[in-house]
């Protein structure tokens, strides 16, 4: 008995010392040693959930979310009511902007009603969801638990600061509190103010690396690359190597591979390997969009807009790290836009023109509202602008949205921001983009553009969505929702109601096409096309119909079908090229060129496209267009350089630019000295 007691005492002392040691090493930033000590502790005491929880918290702090989550889950298996484990899981979910964060925090509080950290997290999560009333309520509960609760006070202070009340009694005067404020401001796209809070945080606590790293990342987002690099390198040097810091530094290193083009109103950064090809297209489109928006929004930007185009999606993705609900193709930070390059995406899956106009709309709306616009409105307006440029642009009604409409999952307008920030189902962000876009379309249709413009100005003064809806549209938000949903229902009813039938029939059509039953394909595919006209992805009805008509020798009907496909926004390069070829064969060269020109917005990295379009435009007398296209051919080291220079020479000659034509002829002949047509033209121009 005595021996047993002695062993128990020794074990307790040993474990007590070891846990203390692990915590102490952690505090001293000796992370590796702390990790080893926790491992030993868990090995020695596999049934102790607390060791796993603390170890998990260390891993979470050191950027290893998956292992941290696993430890929290293991702790819960040992103790199903462990508050620390639920708290850890809530923090992991909160970092990933997952909806479960709230649930886990509540479970932590249920397990330990005095767990201040969980209560403070609930306040922060509510504010991240833009639910100010709830955030106040939760923060006040935390303050009741502990009057010096830093994070709760920071939440209360941030609410005041967001409302432009600089003097607040809640100012926490603590670095971590300012860091939280910085986070919330950035989530509200108020980057410059967010940066100021991060600065205050590191002023008070210079080695608060998480705040310094965020400062660096956000400086980079705003194009302040010099200081961003300095801050991030400091973090890296101090061993703070989270994904955002490392990837941002790596991205800035890669800028040496980019070329920057500047005009009075634009800064365009393109990767060297495609800069020459893409520059004319992007520059023209930027200028066109800026001129359109300046007039439409009645607002002049006071300095150039910077657009960065990344051929590697991973580079672009670095820009969106830590910010939920942003488009997967482009992102706007004030005057800086980062987006995917068309070369970084499978041809046909990305309309860069649409993305560019979308992002540039954000530049105006964010600037005009001093970044105070709710997310649903700026996204909705940007989506609206995509189809305002051209009805063929923008995204179509997709099956996820149809399912959401059918299941009545659309959110009330007053809560729509939640669909972007903390989605409750996997496709909710996509559905929210669609819904927000449709709301702006609806307002534009029913009340006119001036109302949308007035709403922008209202949001600039921090008015809430319900207030703005009521003020500008004369309706309570609930009434607006009712009317909007009725209009959307009328618009989509045929597709939503017929979706299951469409799916069944589509399979049937595919089988009929395989069996060569062309008449049957024409009959069934026409029906499904009209049930769900927006479906233009692989295996769409338009393609089945066009193939069937061609098989029956009716080229005209095939052309008509493919023209329908392009009008509803079909983007497959092969299909568009097929239509262009059919039009050309039928003598409609101008229309063929128009179809191919659409591809310049979808898949411009295509030598054949530019050559064919150049030929068509040259034949049609559009020499400026032909010159641009032939130059595009040459920009990507063509298979046949001599012929490509010769094509450009022909275009220059037609454009009465003989000297430029001669230059190109010499280049053609340098590649192929015996190239007879080029020799002949050179002699003609030299006479």
């Amino acid at each position, binding site marked *: 008995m005595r021996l047993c007691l002695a062993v128990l005492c020794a074990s307790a002392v040993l474990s007590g010392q070891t846990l203390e040691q692990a915590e102490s090493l952690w505090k001293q930033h000796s992370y590796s040693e702390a990790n080893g000590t926790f491992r030993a502790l868990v090995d020695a005491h596999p049934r102790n959930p607390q060791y796993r929880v603390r170890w998990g918290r260390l891993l979470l702090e050191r950027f290893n979310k998956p292992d941290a989550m696993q430890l929290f889950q293991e702790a819960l298996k040992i103790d199903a009511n462990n508050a620390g484990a639920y708290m850890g899981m809530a923090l992991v979910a909160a970092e990933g902007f997952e909806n479960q964060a709230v649930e886990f925090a509540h479970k932590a509080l249920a397990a330990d009603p005095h767990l201040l950290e969980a209560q403070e997290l609930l306040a922060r999560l509510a504010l991240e969801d833009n639910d100010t009333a709830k955030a106040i309520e939760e923060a006040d509960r935390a303050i009741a638990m502990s009057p010096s609760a830093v994070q709760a006070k920071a939440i209360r202070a941030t609410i005041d600061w967001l409302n432009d009340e600089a003097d607040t009694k809640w100012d926490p005067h603590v670095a971590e509190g300012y860091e939280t404020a910085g986070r919330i401001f950035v989530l509200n796209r108020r980057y410059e103010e967010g940066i100021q809070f991060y600065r205050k945080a590191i002023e008070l606590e210079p080695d608060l690396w998480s705040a310094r790293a965020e400062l660096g990342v956000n400086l980079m987002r705003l194009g302040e690359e010099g200081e961003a690099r300095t801050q991030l390198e400091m973090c890296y040097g101090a061993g703070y190597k989270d994904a955002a810091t490392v990837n941002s530094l790596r991205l800035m290193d890669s800028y040496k591979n980019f070329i920057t083009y500047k005009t009075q109103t634009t800064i365009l950064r393109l990767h060297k390997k495609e800069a020459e090809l893409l520059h004319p297209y992007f520059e023209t489109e930027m200028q066109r969009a800026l001129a359109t928006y300046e007039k439409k929004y009645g607002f002049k930007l006071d300095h150039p807009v910077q657009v960065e185009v990344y051929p590697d999606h991973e580079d672009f993705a670095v820009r969106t790290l830590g910010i939920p609900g942003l488009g997967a193709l482009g992102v706007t930070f004030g005057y800086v836009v980062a987006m995917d390059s068309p070369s970084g995406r499978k041809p046909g899956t990305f309309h860069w023109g649409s993305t560019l106009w979308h992002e540039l709309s954000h530049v105006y709306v964010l600037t005009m509202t001093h970044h105070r616009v709710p997310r649903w409105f700026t996204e909705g307006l940007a989506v609206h602008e995509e189809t305002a440029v051209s009805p063929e642009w923008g995204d179509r009604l997709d099956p996820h949205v149809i399912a959401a409409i059918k299941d009545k999952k659309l959110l009330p307008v007053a809560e729509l921001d939640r669909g972007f920030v903390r989605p409750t189902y996997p496709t909710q962000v996509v559905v929210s983009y669609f819904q927000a876009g449709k709301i702006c379309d609806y307002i534009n249709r029913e009340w006119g553009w001036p109302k949308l413009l007035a709403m922008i100005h209202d949001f600039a003064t921090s008015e809430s969505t319900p207030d703005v809806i009521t003020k500008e549209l004369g309706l309570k938000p609930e009434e607006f929702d009712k009317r909007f949903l009725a209009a959307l229902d009328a618009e989509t009813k045929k597709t939503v109601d017929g979706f299951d039938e469409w799916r069944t029939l589509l399979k049937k059509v595919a089988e009929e096409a395989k069996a060569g039953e062309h008449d049957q394909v024409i009959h069934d595919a026409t029906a499904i096309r009209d049930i769900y006209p927006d479906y233009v992805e692989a295996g769409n009805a338009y393609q089945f119909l066009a193939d069937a008509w061609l098989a029956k020798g009716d080229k005209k009907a095939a052309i008509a079908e493919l023209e329908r496909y392009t009008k509803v926004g079909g983007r497959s390069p092969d299909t568009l090229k097929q239509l262009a070829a059919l039009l050309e064969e039928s003598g409609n060269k101008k229309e063929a060129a128009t179809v191919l020109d659409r591809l310049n917005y979808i898949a411009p990295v295509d030598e054949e496209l530019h050559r064919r379009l150049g030929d068509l435009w040259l034949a049609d007398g559009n020499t400026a267009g032909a010159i641009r296209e032939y130059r595009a051919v040459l920009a990507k080291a063509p298979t046949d350089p001599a012929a490509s220079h010769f094509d450009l020479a022909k275009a220059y000659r037609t454009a009465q630019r003989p000297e430029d034509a001669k230059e190109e002829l010499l280049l053609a002949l340098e590649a192929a000295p*015996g190239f007879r047509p080029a020799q002949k033209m050179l002699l003609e121009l030299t006479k």
Partner: protein
Amino acid sequence: MGERTVLLLLVCALSLHATTFYVTVSGLGGEPDYEQRFGMWAKDIDKTLKASPDSKVETLVDGTRAQVREALERVAKEAKPQDAVVVMLIGHGTFDGYDYKINLAGPDLSASELAGMLDHVPATRQLVVNMTSASGGSIEFLRRPGRVVITATKTGSEKNATVFARYWVEALRDAAADTDKNEVISALEAYRYADKKTAAYYESQNRLATEHAVLEDTGKGEPVRAPSPENGEGLLAATFPLIRLGAAAAAAKDPAKLQLLAKKDDLEQQIDKLKYEKAAIPPEEYKKQLAALLLELARTQEELDK
């Protein structure tokens, strides 16, 4: 470069009186899609080549090892040293670390067996275009002085099905492959065309390329992705006329134009020399000299065409 021109002229002159023997083999597809694709490419090559003068074409769709052997034995009997032989392989290949094999109906054909068959062909100029998966594994068996070896993959470990053959077929009938516009598509031009299009295919699909074509034509060197004077590869391939697009060199038969032809040859050599020295000449001076030579060449050609 001048040396290359002289060699090209010699080869062209030789080839005016020479015959090119083409043997194209498509192997087993394993599944209907590949079966159909391989057969179609072989048939397309057959059709294109049969339209070309001075060529003897044999195409074995779903060929067997015995059929390949017989075909090459026939070539060995007929061909003379000044003739050329071109063997093109399409299908799936394997490499086990020791030898390469193309999958054929019945017993497969190994690279060493194919090399043995080709060694019996007296034609001194030979081209093997192995477009199968893992074809890089066949190079060490096939390379020999006087033989150009092109493979769709750089090693035997690139095992995925290839698309190089698709673009090789295209090269044979696309005038754009004739980059020097001499109306003859050389083995090097076809290689560059197919390689570029293959790379573009993977790029356009946003897929990681699983094949990297290579060429070896010294008989002793390492195969390279980009043949150039710097790495010493491509000289023989550049002078190997794979297919003729027009009636090149018809003017050579008119004695009245011999002086003009000599002048033309001289100008072409001067242009080649100037291009070779480009890096050492100030840009403006280079441009001036090049323009003068090209203009003179154009005038000479105009006289020749009268």
